[in-house]
């Protein structure tokens, strides 16, 4: 069986398909991927054997069998021969936690890059911009494997020129570097990239504390990585945008939702603060009670679909995030398809039972 090839999808505008058109095309593509992975990946085949009583009855995106994203922490799931592995991406878990391992071949990695580039040109324009990364350059040096943070920085760096790191190795503001960057690109649009929590903790709060104001009024901030830590500090999207406006006069702040298990096909925020599914990907919100489909406005567990994962069976994943579908095809920004909001991580429940006791605590 030949690996599916979806490179022709790059010819379309990322938000060009209405939900109906997209559902039809994407379902076909994802069915093809399901078949591919079931032939190529034995573990995936075993799951399908148990999950799917009646293969061939897939009529819509909601019917595509999905696997939990957590599985990539427990198992090496790949649909390529080991000599075809080009790089292994890992999620950035804190020490001691298991990390996801995502196996990429050259083709999958290349398609991820192309799709990301397509999506970013919608935000940044066609030209590459001077780029300020709100992180420390050591994030790339210290790891053998690609952590999600390192991979994100490397991936987004392709859209930047004169890439400058705003933080030093101790995650403090590197003012000489920032000032040199500002002097050089004064008055021109710049691309500012970082992880939501890092931007908040090490950029916004540090600038506030030091009483520094940066003239980044032509800056475009792109950030992602989750709101979990900011929710603990009661910082929401609005507060985040306001803070960036006040410390650096930034007018354009773009959040994205994405994960290392589906690198490339990001869900990018529009000017109205809504996350949008591009044609290469989609979201489904499932009711916790039975995994039935939640209606517009009803909270559900987020399932993400993407046609990029070809080297590993990650094209339909049940996340551990809660979100809500805001609408379909009718966002004021004119982008077609589904748009939504991420509410946050599913809360861990307290463990009850007699096996957890004296030494260990989860």
């Amino acid at each position: 069986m030949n690996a599916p090839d979806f490179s022709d999808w790059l010819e379309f505008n990322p938000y060009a398909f209405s939900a109906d058109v997209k559902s039809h095309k994407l379902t076909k593509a994802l069915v093809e991927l399901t078949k591919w992975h079931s032939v190529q990946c034995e573990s995936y085949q075993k799951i399908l054997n148990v999950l799917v009583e009646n293969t061939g009855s897939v009529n819509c995106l909601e019917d595509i069998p999905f696997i939990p994203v957590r599985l990539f922490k427990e198992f090496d799931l790949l649909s390529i021969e080991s000599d075809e592995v080009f790089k292994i991406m890992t999620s950035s878990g804190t020490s001691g936690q298991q990390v996801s391992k995502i196996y990429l071949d050259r083709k999958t990695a290349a398609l991820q890059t192309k799709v990301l580039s397509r999506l970013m040109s919608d935000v940044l324009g066609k030209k590459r911009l001077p780029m300020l990364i709100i992180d420390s350059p050591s994030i790339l040096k210290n790891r053998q494997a690609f952590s999600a943070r390192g991979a994100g920085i490397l991936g987004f760096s392709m859209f930047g020129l004169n890439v400058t790191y705003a933080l030093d190795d101790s995650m403090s503001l590197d003012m000489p570097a920032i000032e040199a960057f500002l002097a050089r690109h004064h008055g021109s649009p710049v691309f500012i990239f970082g992880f939501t929590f890092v931007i908040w903790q090490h950029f916004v709060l540090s600038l506030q504390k030091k009483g520094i104001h940066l003239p980044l009024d032509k800056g475009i901030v792109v950030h992602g990585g989750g709101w979990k830590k900011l929710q603990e500090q009661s910082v929401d999207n609005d507060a985040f945008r306001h803070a960036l406006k006040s410390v650096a006069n930034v007018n354009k702040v773009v959040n994205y939702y994405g994960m290392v298990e589906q690198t490339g096909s990001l869900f990018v925020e529009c000017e109205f603060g809504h996350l949008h599914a591009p044609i290469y990907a989609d979201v489904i919100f499932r009711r916790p009670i039975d995994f039935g489909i939640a209606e517009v406005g009803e909270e559900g567990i987020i399932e993400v679909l993407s046609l990029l994962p070809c080297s590993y069976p990650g094209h339909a994943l049940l996340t551990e995030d809660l979100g809500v579908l805001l609408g379909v095809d009718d966002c004021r920004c004119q982008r077609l398809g589904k748009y939504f909001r991420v509410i946050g991580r599913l809360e861990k429940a307290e463990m009850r039972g007699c096996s957890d006791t004296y030494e260990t605590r989860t």
Partner: protein
Amino acid sequence: MAAAIPMKRVPDLSVEVIVGSQLPEMVSQPLTPYSSEAISFLGALSIRLFANPSIRLYPDVAAFAYWCRRSNLTRLSRSFDTQTRRIGRGLVLHIAPANVPVNFAFSLAFGILAGNANIVRISESNHPQATIICGEISDLFRDPKHTRIAAMTRVIKYPREHEITAELSRLCHARVLWGGDVTINHLRSMITSPRCIDICFPDRYSLCILGAEAINAADEQAIDNLVSGFYNDVFLLDQNACSSPHLVIWQGSREDVDNAMSRFWPAMEHLLSTKFVPPAIHAVDKYSHLCSVAIRLKGCTSISRQQNYIYRVRLESLPEKIENYRGQHGFFFEAIDNDLEGLKSIVDDRFQTVTCFGVSPQSIIDSIIEAGVNGVDRVVPVGKALDIGVIWDGYDIIGTLSRIISEQ
């Protein structure tokens, strides 16, 4: 009374004392099993707990209070060994589990009934159940009637710290250890006094045997009782209790079993839907576990779901080490095993409780004994899985925590 008896004092350790005075004031002069002091104290505790309005919120506290009624303890004392003269071993250290809030109280009560002085280390989880029970015990200890038991009892907290447990382990005459295998092995590697005995309650595995014919013949009321019993066995502690079933063995013809399944599980689902809305993470946990089992376990062919309340994996035969695949929050393996040959071939010393319905417990015990297997310590009706008692995990706890003074 006590001051005249020479004994090792418990040193003043840096622990938080929840019940009782400071550790060095402790008296460890043992009593006989089921002493009038013990029964009178526990009986009074039962009455106080039932009078506490917050007991309504905590069925597990109510179950403990019900168990330690004077009448129940008197009944137990009558069936206890009357042939020999016995006395408590002395000082017993209890390491209670963190996540079963009232187990510490049962452990303490067993220690008291056996005639011992007891130090119970409870977890730092601050369960409200522990607060209620410890509060009532402390109040009772102010009553001069309970001076002796008060002098022999401490409930303490300290961080999961090796040194304090090690020091107490060197002092005591018996230890009652609850915990996972890793914890138990760690605790058992500590040096104790040479005469010290340990009663260990490590990880166990439990199952349920259902007779299909009986389920098909049962009236609505009987089915209601069955599913509510099964609910208590499984869901009160999220299927994490050692005695909660993870495997359901069906007996009967294939047709009868199919009919019984389609009666039992939907009734179970209906009951669950009236009881609670499970946290979303439980659904993801179960689904993830299902996929993991599909990859790791050979021979799991089909899956049935009752919404996300119950996941059932159907097995054609029972695989060895099935206990390594246990799930949580309502995740079951199911198989037909009419002569229990399958079960007997996989039972090992991890197997603890068999709950049953429509099958005679006596016949199950007979086949366990005939087969000469190393597991299964308990066969009880569905609904009784969590009912802890003085016989547990195959131990006669009161007997083991006391010593015999022989005359010949």
